[in-house]
């Protein structure tokens, strides 16, 4: 078994602004592009579509832009937002989950806890945990195989 650190990223940051302002910055399509992707789609409801496009800077063709996409799993205004994050065009990219948890702390500040989980980073796990990984790879394989044939 491995520690959880091998499969998730956890970051904490305190922002000197109230939760509603922070929530808007992480969930509003227009505000997102002010600090994060070049283009943002985020439908504010459970099951809503998420797609962030990052242009390749200093590049004439934009063929190599990357666009992670997924769907909204949780949407609680001013408190929490969670969505899947996948790269369908990158072989071996796992189905990861990004979760933003906001907490109102004193002096009108907001504590953000960001967790990006679902990275497969273990070799010695028990089978049940492994199964999803193998299923994933085998699914991928079918795609890869069809391309090669």
């Amino acid at each position: 078994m491995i520690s959880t650190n091998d499969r998730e990223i956890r970051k904490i940051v305190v922002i000197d602004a109230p939760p509603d302002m922070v929530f808007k910055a992480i969930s509003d399509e227009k505000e997102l592009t002010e600090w994060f992707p070049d283009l943002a789609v985020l439908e504010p409801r459970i099951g809503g579509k998420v797609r962030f496009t990052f242009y390749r800077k200093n590049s004439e063709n934009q063929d190599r832009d990357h666009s992670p996409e997924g769907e909204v799993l949780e949407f609680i205004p001013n408190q929490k937002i969670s969505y899947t994050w996948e790269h369908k065009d990158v072989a071996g990219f796992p189905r990861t989950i990004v979760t933003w948890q906001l907490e109102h702390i004193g002096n009108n500040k907001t504590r953000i806890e960001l967790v990006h989980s679902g990275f497969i980073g273990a070799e010695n796990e028990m089978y049940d945990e492994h199964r999803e990984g193998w299923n994933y790879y085998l699914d991928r394989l079918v795609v890869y195989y069809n391309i090669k044939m």
Partner: protein
Amino acid sequence: MFPSELAEHFDMTLAGVSTHLRILRDADLVKEKREGQRRLYSLNTEATLEIKNFYDQMWSNNLNSLKEFVENKKRKEGKRK
């Protein structure tokens, strides 16, 4: 895991699983180790760790940008009031 162990869990023949595993190995998604006559397979975790490290760095940078953006915005709105 050995191909025979994997085959138990999929609706595929052992030969089918073995073929798939060889392709996964060629695509660098799994690692293969020979144990006598048998081949042992494991996920290539280096590939996923590389992805994870990329995102670790990316989130650090972007959380700083987020902090800057929101705090600047708050400051500007405060001035207007």
